[in-house]
């Protein structure tokens, strides 16, 4: 599989993770650092079901999927292996949701930093426990697997070596199926009256209580829902890599997801999605930075077209006519009306990046060596320039000028319209 397809798979999994964490960190404003832990719970449950399940059912842990999981064209759309895989992912979600319920309970009393510490502790406990499990039973020993009771199999999770040699069922189809499903569920939730209740908890817990929102119940619900999808993502992750190791799912993993949520804007689904895409691509792009100017130029053209048509971004307001002409006229009009601000920013950033790239090329500096530094630097700049995240607490389409009834509105808005 090519590098590009791999990045697409990672993007899909990260969308599931970021959008699901939005429910806890973005909607209800709790600060959970345990997303990696929930992912690990789900991942191991799915790995166990698929690996030992295959050995029990078919005597081998080889790939036994249909077209949707292999895209190789022969055989049925779905085969036994796919069904086992889907069941495993659902079980992964449920197991993680159960863990989410347990972790959500202390969140009734804890807030902010304190909750963060509890969830961080949970993630570390999961990691350490998984690393302490017994070695995986080898693929060749199907008869041993058959004879071992299920509860005992659950202790053979590979320990520090991780759970390896899994059949890889998680193709683009399944991963994006899960991503779209997550997006739909979370979007529907946000736009519902329950979603409004979630948001009200973030805004003001006391007032939310005064509105009749059962704050306790909703906080736990947020945890359960969010960790369900984290568990599914864990299952997909294991079945895409063909292996899972708890070491990779520690707090650093949780932080990556938190960064996506914060960068996208607290509670913004489209923001979290975009951030998940950008942050999955960024480290790969920085390995060998391609020329920036084509992208910059394309973006500029698109922005000019959008302004011409009368759609403005959040940074600008007011009608935009004759951009090209205006630029030609004088700097005076530029200073007078700052509707060019985004254009100038994009052009400036493009030129700066291109200059930096050329300098590095000329001086024979290997950018790839500094890629994590650059990555961190970009995050810092982003947070300074736009601390509320890409889209703030809103969605992408809220910035389009003629706003449709897209803000979370329920019966009242419909009725009054």
């Amino acid at each position, binding site marked *: 599989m090519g590098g590009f397809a791999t990045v697409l798979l990672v993007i899909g999994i990260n969308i599931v993770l970021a959008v699901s964490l939005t429910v806890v960190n973005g909607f209800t404003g709790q600060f959970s650092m345990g997303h990696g832990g929930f992912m690990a719970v789900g991942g191991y449950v799915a790995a166990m079901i698929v690996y030992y399940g295959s050995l029990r059912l078919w005597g081998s842990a080889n790939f036994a999927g249909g077209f949707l999981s292999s895209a190789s064209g022969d055989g049925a759309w779905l085969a036994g292996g796919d069904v086992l895989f889907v069941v495993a992912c659902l079980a992964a979600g449920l197991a993680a949701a159960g863990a989410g319920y347990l972790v959500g309970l202390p969140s009734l009393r804890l807030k902010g930093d304190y909750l963060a510490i509890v969830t961080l502790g949970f993630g570390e406990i999961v990691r350490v426990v998984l690393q302490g499990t017994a070695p995986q039973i080898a693929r060749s020993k199907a008869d041993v697997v058959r004879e071992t009771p299920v509860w005992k199999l659950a202790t053979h999770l590979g320990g520090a070596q991780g759970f390896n040699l899994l059949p890889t069922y998680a193709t683009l189809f399944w991963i994006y199926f899960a991503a779209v499903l997550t997006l739909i569920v979370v979007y529907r939730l946000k736009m519902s009256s329950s979603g409004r209740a979630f948001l009200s908890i973030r*805004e003001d817990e006391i007032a939310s*209580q005064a509105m009749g929102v059962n704050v306790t119940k909703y906080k736990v619900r947020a945890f359960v829902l969010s960790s369900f999808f984290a568990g599914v993502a864990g299952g997909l992750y294991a079945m895409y890599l063909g292996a899972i190791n708890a070491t990779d799912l520690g707090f650093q993993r949780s932080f990556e997801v938190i960064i996506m949520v914060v960068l996208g804007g607290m509670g913004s689904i489209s923001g979290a999605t975009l951030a998940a895409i950008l942050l999955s691509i960024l480290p790969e792009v920085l390995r060998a930075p391609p020329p920036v100017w084509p992208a910059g130029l394309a973006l500029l053209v698109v922005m000019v077209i959008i302004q011409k048509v009368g759609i403005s971004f959040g940074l600008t307001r007011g009608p935009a006519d004759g951009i090209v002409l205006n630029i030609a006229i004088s700097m005076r009009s530029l200073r007078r009306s700052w509707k060019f601000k985004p254009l100038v920013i994009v052009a400036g950033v493009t030129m700066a990046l291109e200059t930096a790239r050329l300098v590095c090329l000329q001086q024979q500096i290997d950018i790839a060596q500094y890629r994590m530094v650059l990555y961190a630097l970009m995050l810092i700049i982003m947070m300074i320039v736009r601390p509320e995240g890409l889209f703030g607490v809103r969605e992408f389409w809220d910035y389009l000028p003629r706003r449709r009834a897209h803000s979370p509105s329920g019966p009242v808005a419909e*009725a009054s319209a």
Partner: protein
Amino acid sequence: MPLLQVSNLHVSYGSIRALHGIDLEVEAGKIVTLIGANGAGKSTTLRAISGMIPSEQGAISFDGHSILGTPPHRLLEQGMAHVPEGRGIFGNLTVEDNLALGAYIRNDRDGIRNDHERVLELFPRLKERLKQSAGTLSGGEQQMLAIARGMMSRPRLLLLDEPSLGLAPQFVQTIFAIIREVNQQGTTILLIEQNAHMALQVAHQAYVLETGAIAMRGPASELAASDEVRKRYLGIA
């Protein structure tokens, strides 16, 4: 029987006694005000009534049922809405969403729509700002929104905690006019105020709270005329 009856209510914050033995009655259809200085326990009384903080001892009954220890979301279902101090509006949500959250516990679409329109008639300024983030409203408008939101649950009893706090004098007049209007439309109101002058003008009954206990009670007009109250709370010699 009064709509709300509080007797011998005790509340403590840790080892600190905030209320020792409050007796209070709110008759249906009336405006009752609770006035007192900073730290007298006004907000504490209100929070204990609406179940946001636990009471140590005493009895609270609403519409004949004991509501001691009932969580706030249940009380709202029974018809008691609390507009918290400092307004507590949801700043990042639109005015419309704030109002919708006020009707969160209700399921009757037509009723909610009617109340939505009724409330907007009462607060025309909010009508102009339905799509705006509530955080961008002025202080007075936010207070209007808080009251409007409280009314969206169609409560029988509205608990108002310092609605005039931090408002320009002109807005204070408007808010009190609205409180009177809301009451005339049939909602009973328990009003907590530092602005004793205004509170005693709109209220029917009044209680004076001093360091956790009721110091005086009576018809508002009588208290407004008493030398003690005039000296201590109205600043008139």
